[in-house]
């Protein structure tokens, strides 16, 4: 049998974030997104992904599966890579710092973005917002990640097949930071 990478259990943080609110009806809350406080008013169980895309107009974060499998919707919450399709609005509070691809840098100057540009990593590019956010979180936690670290952290799906350039891009960004 081939090892099934999907069998592994989510970490505790993800489990907590996946807990779906049962509260119904509209729900007003304040979120801190890309350094700005924004007021959001929609159903409490609306996934952060769709709050970002449809309430805040931040469409750089992509819908790919809706079940936290593909990673296209990866954002940072307090620095950790989180799959926003599985985070209901009700699970968030105003103190949590949410960063999307649009907020990673002002001008594409984050080391991961620069390495991606230098290596022409994207093909269709649809998964790349999530890839870049996952890579940036990895490098923030482990500035010099090993191949095993990269294997473990980068579980985002890319169908065009950019994986080898993603790995090279992470190493290049790590080298630039060192």
């Amino acid at each position, binding site marked *: 049998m081939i090892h099934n990478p999907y069998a592994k259990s989510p970490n505790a943080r993800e489990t907590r974030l996946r807990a779906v609110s049962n509260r119904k009806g509209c729900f007003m809350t304040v979120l801190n997104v890309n350094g700005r406080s924004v007021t959001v008013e929609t159903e409490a169980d609306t996934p952060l992904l769709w709050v970002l895309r449809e309430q805040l107009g931040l469409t750089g974060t992509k819908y790919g599966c809706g079940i936290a499998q593909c990673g296209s919707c990866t954002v940072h919450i307090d620095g950790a890579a989180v799959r926003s399709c599985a985070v209901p609005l009700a699970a968030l509070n105003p103190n949590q710092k949410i960063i999307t691809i649009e907020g990673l840098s002002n001008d594409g100057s984050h080391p991961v973005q620069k390495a991606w540009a230098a290596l022409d990593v994207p*093909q269709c590019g649809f998964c790349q917002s999530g890839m870049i956010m996952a890579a940036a979180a990895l490098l923030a936690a482990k500035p010099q990640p090993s191949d095993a670290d990269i294997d473990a952290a980068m579980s985002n799906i890319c*169908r065009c097949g*950019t994986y080898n350039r993603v790995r090279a891009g992470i190493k290049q960004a790590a080298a630039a930071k060192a």
Partner: protein
Amino acid sequence: MLQDTVISRRSFLGTAGAGLVVGFHVAGPGEARAQDAAPPEINAWVRVLPDDRVVIRIVRSEMGQGTLTGLAQLVAEELDCDWSKVSTEQPTPGQSLARNRVWGNFSTGGSRGIRESHEYVRKGGAAARMMLVQAAADEWKVPVGECRAASSVITHVPTGRSTSYGKVADAAGRLPVPANVPLKDPKDWKIAGKPVMRLDTKDKLTGAQVYGMDLKLPGMLNAAVKDCPVFGGKVKSFDAAAIAQRSGVKKVVQVGDSAVAVVADTWWHAKTALDALPIVWDEGANATASSAAFAAVLKAGLDAPEAVVGNSSGDARAALAAAPRTVEAVYAYPHQNHATMETMNATARWTPTRCEVWTPTQNGEAALAATSEAAGLPATQCEVYKINLGGGFGRRGAVHDWVRQAVAIAKELPGTPVKLIWSREEDMQHGRYHPVTMCKLKAGLDAQGNLTALHMRISGQSILAGVFPQNVRDGRDPVVFQGLNASGPEASIGYSVPNLLVDHAMRNPTVPPGFWRGVNLNQNAIYLECFIDELAHAKGQDPLAFRLKLMDKHPKHRAVLEAATQGAGWGTPPPPGVYRGLAQTMGFGSYVAAVAEVSVSPAGELKIHRIVAATDPGHAVNPQQIAMQVEGSFVYGLSAALFGQCTLKDGRIEQSNFDAYPVMLLKQMPKVETIIVPSGGFWGGVGEPTIAVAAPAVLNAIFAATGVRIRELPLKNQSLKKA
């Protein structure tokens, strides 16, 4: 195609030009922005702005494969322009219609973007250069033969005076387009043939790139759709009142006879309301269909007396009957979903007199035809704006089922733009699937184990029968034999077999087929290349040596196989515990081969360590892009080999998302070394052919490692414990 460039500037101004600036044309990354959109147009392919910026027109769709950059390189090469000032723009299918298809075919599949348009796009660039130089010569009142162009600068050689493209663009655009347009010898290329960076990367790094799913239009509503889960089933009834009070819901509409859509203010509201909508289906005659039952139909086809012959030489049946030794095996390949990262989507706005669609499509012209048909309006009253694709892989080319749905929904809300997005579940269960086939191979060997006869009987699904039935004549789908054709320029078999018979018993299930990146080359290369491996082992000969003996009359196939095996060090010892397998094939105009290095643990866990792949595409327009396509081909091909399987039960596809339809991840990805060996003289595609060698190279390496011969995919269903 030269007449394509003989179009006056005025006809462009009068018709097509406006479309680039009005409405909601979404400029893609690297594209000219709307404010740049005014002419001057030099000819249909090139605009040059007064500040020397060059805008190149591209109608093939960019879906990650790099064709946008490659085609721009070809135009820019002949234009002799400054590459750093190049951007691109996409004429619409409506503009093409109004200009008598001046840009040729929009279809972007079959790896044809560059290989089928290289000549006319280069002539477009060359003609524009000639006009610019002529305009400068006219201004200086000197013979044009005394002027030279390089990097957007025109120089009068005798006097040394110079001007730039931007300064003479307006005058050049008024000149007649030349009739005789010579092209450069590729050996003189300075921009084409070079690993220049893609033109469309920047916005993909910041979230700024707008995909179809990201489109926003004023007053736009959002729709989610659910088609009958059983193929061929219909809507019996639904209870719209049950969800009418839900937040944001605007309308519940039946779409055709088989689907229901909810239109709401946001997609999340539409999707969740649709999930709550009670729908009763008439599942129809296919309600009990299953992959298991269809497997019996495929098996019966392996021995059916009736079959269509695809390739034949000598008398294979007689030679097999007379052979002192025969080897026989049956292989099988399952249904698979394209699983583009961006699910199907389209935005449509319909009025009684006009219909517009914004959608990611591999074929803008086909999308326009689908729009026109669904809208009930002539194509001249419709328009399609192509939006960047989050993957295509063949799903977004031939059949525009999602476009028809979007238009049908928009017709219920005249004047309101409606964005339809398929959920991943809808996308997974209403795909146009990789065809399902089985193949029985029977070989005759002489006393020394040499191959004397081969019969390949393919039993199974025809893509053409499902997609373009008008192209199936007398029960014959010629595409079925991809990679197994007689010698020739396309998809030819790489071996000389004295007595050969390749035939097809068509058996079509209820699952709709589609062109799936690599198409029929995928399974045919597995069937042939794994079986050839079996024959080599039956003879007790090295698989490379066994093949080379059959390849004397196939020098291009042979050359890439030799390039791959030399690159991999075939014949030298691999690292301890690592085993090699190889495969070669030809399709989409190119010759490809690969060597895989794998290890299999005692528990049967596979690790793919390294791939060495060689490609001969004739001319290599951008080596870096080719390398990326080769790397990506292994992800696509190995995802299919390791995991790819859609199964039918109770008439419906069982898998609905990536949890049940896993694909390869970064941690499973081997190193890929790409060897490009362009032999010149022809133009082959690179987006697809390499996919076909990914699986057989790995399967043959698995056999070398374990003695286990895998004949049925995907591998996740198989035990790899040593035999």
